[in-house]
């Protein structure tokens, strides 16, 4: 296939998936959240169940005046949302939705993901600094401290999986999970890493993901009741939309990574190899939806931690446990 044609197709597919996916997740959050609170949520937009509410919101944001404060550093202020958005979209390049349905199957897939996703810290710091608002600045600093602190457990938890899988390629990790682990009564049983002793890594990874996403219980950077909206305080209109979409897109992205690392990715039991490319995306989406729902569920149930408690959790608990976990996994890998 023509290189450029392939590139354009993949680009459009990824962009389309990210944007529609983000809208769907926004709708899911609106609906699930309101039902958890005993409300109905969006109801009028679209004809039924308010399905068009995210679209309507998007349109509303587009029409809104794009304000920037007098003291703001305009260039950086304008650039920040796109940096965040870009780092999120770039993650999707290496996430496999089927044996061949992947933007580019890099050998260093998971490494690339962890590297590129931490770029969003830069965008958030830019936003916090350039807004010329004390709340934004404090939000930005909190975000920087938090994201850096939780980058470590995230990487370490992923490293444990990499050690077990023996590869950094995302596709390779999926394949490692669809290998036969043991055979019972003539049936080959394949297990995802979650059930192959990586439960601790999974929990650490998910905690770190929620922290990376700045969602409750780790939403101190935007802590509405403390810092009004943190680094988002001054943003409005299309730029706010970018942050907003970025947040939900990265929710999908991190859920996709977690699904790939721990839940077996696009692989499902009983699917013949020939159909893997066809069924794979559906299986993957289901797994993503499950994780996204858990993240939404937590957000509508739990309160927020405090900044110092969050740091203490990361440095005193998650990182030592993750390191010990890697050691244990490595020992098992060598021994068995």
């Amino acid at each position, binding site marked *: 296939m023509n290189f450029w044609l392939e590139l354009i197709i993949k680009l459009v597919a990824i962009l389309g998936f990210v944007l529609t996916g983000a809208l769907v997740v926004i709708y899911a959050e609106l609906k699930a959240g309101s039902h958890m609170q005993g409300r109905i949520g969006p109801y009028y937009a679209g004809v039924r169940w308010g399905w068009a509410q995210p679209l309507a919101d998007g349109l509303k944001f587009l029409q809104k005046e794009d304000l920037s404060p007098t003291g703001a550093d305009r260039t950086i202020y304008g650039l920040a949302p796109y940096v965040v958005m870009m780092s999120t979209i770039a993650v999707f390049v290496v996430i496999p939705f089927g044996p061949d349905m992947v933007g580019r199957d890099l050998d260093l897939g998971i490494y690339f993901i962890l590297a590129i996703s931490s770029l969003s810290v830069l965008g958030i710091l830019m936003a916090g600094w350039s807004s010329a608002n004390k709340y934004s600045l404090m939000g930005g600093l909190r975000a920087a401290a938090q994201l850096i602190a939780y980058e470590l457990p995230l990487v370490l938890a992923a490293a444990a999986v990499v050690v077990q899988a023996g590869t950094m390629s995302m596709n390779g990790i999926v394949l490692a999970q669809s290998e036969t682990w043991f055979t019972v009564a003539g049936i080959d049983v394949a297990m995802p890493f979650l059930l192959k002793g990586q439960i601790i890594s999974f929990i650490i990874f998910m905690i770190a993901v929620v922290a990376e996403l700045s969602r409750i219980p780790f939403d101190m950077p935007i802590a509405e*009741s403390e810092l009004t909206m943190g680094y988002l305080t001054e943003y409005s209109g299309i730029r706010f939309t970018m942050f907003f979409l970025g947040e939900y897109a990265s929710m999908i992205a991190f859920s996709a990574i977690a699904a790939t690392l721990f839940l077996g990715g696009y692989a499902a039991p009983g699917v013949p190899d020939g159909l893997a490319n066809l069924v794979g995306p559906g299986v993957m989406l289901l797994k993503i939806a499950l994780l996204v729902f858990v993240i939404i569920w937590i957000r509508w149930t739990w*309160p927020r931690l405090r900044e110092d408690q969050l740091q203490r959790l990361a440095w005193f608990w998650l990182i030592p446990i993750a390191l010990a976990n890697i050691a244990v996994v490595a020992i098992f890998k060598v021994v068995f």
Partner: protein
Amino acid sequence: MTDLAMIHRSESAVSIELQTPDMTLNIGPQHPSTHGVLRLIAKVAGERVTDVEPVIGYMHRGYEKLSEVRTYAQITTLVNRIDWVAGFASEVPFIIGVEKLMGVEAPPRAQYIRMILTELARMASHLVFMSSYPLELGATTPLMYALREREYILELIEEVTGGRFHPNFNRVGGVKPVYGGGSMTKKWSLDLPEGFLQRARDAMDRMEQICDDIDTLVSDNELIKMRTVGIGVIPRDKALEYGLTGPNLRASGVAYDLRKVENLLPYDEIDFDIAVRQGGDCYDRYVLRIEEVRQSSRIVRQAVDQIPSGPLQTKVPRVLKAPRGQVYSRGENPKGEFGYHIVSEGARMPYRLKIRSTSFSNLSILPWILQDALIPDLVAIMGSLDFVLGDVDR
């Protein structure tokens, strides 16, 4: 606490070294966690508040001045707007003060109706607290649960008085007995509507259920405990010095409840406990209010069962002129001691009315208690004091 103190010491050492000036952070008057229009001018060193100056008065309506040009009947409509989440509870002390001046006493049925409605107002107020406090700590869902249940309480109040927030149902010598003053409307009694007592019992079931739910969702939550236990401790002597009353005082280990102390309403015929906790921190103030809702529902259940029959109002003159004298009348508002010092010069209007509003005193401890708090704790402490800006500013 020791960890925090340690962090603080190291932080201040750093700031001396680097000569970083403190930042002035203006919180409010439009801020999500200041409950309206409270403004705090905070000096912050990083996340730590070194000094805070509350600015109030954005909602000052001058009720003390307005009362001087209004008759006693007209003032009743003002006083339930001071603490609007528990309007009925602030009406009662005022009207009893005027009754004391005039030497009349409400008939037993009116007193029981007052007591039931006061307790309903207390529950409504505490439900607002139970909903808004977790919100300040970041949990959004208890808000909806508690406000949903509050609707049943407000409906009960509205059913009897005609107003959800501003009942204006107390009259000198009892409660509002009839619909109007005309020959026809005079016959329309405003006694409890049919089925009210049963609906009150049903609502009490719901109250106990929501207390359990909020316990499950909030009080037992480890994150909430991490955020509130040991935070914002008010010792007993400081609480008394700053005039803290109500749940805020009782959380500091002082079993002082005007329902037991003053005999404005027939609380002595009811069996209930004063909720007291010893810690004086945010968590105790929070949990104590849930316990108070349970006690209130006990009171309502008993009052509904043993409400006597009889008239709603004693005979009082049509033109209310209180004799000369000064009376201080206070009652247990959901937030604490709510008092009125009425100075009467024998006219239809008081010469001076001093309103001792609860939240004003409760909030005056803010500069003391917020010293060296972290910004997230600032929000947690402020919310745990449970103030209403209308009550602060009057």
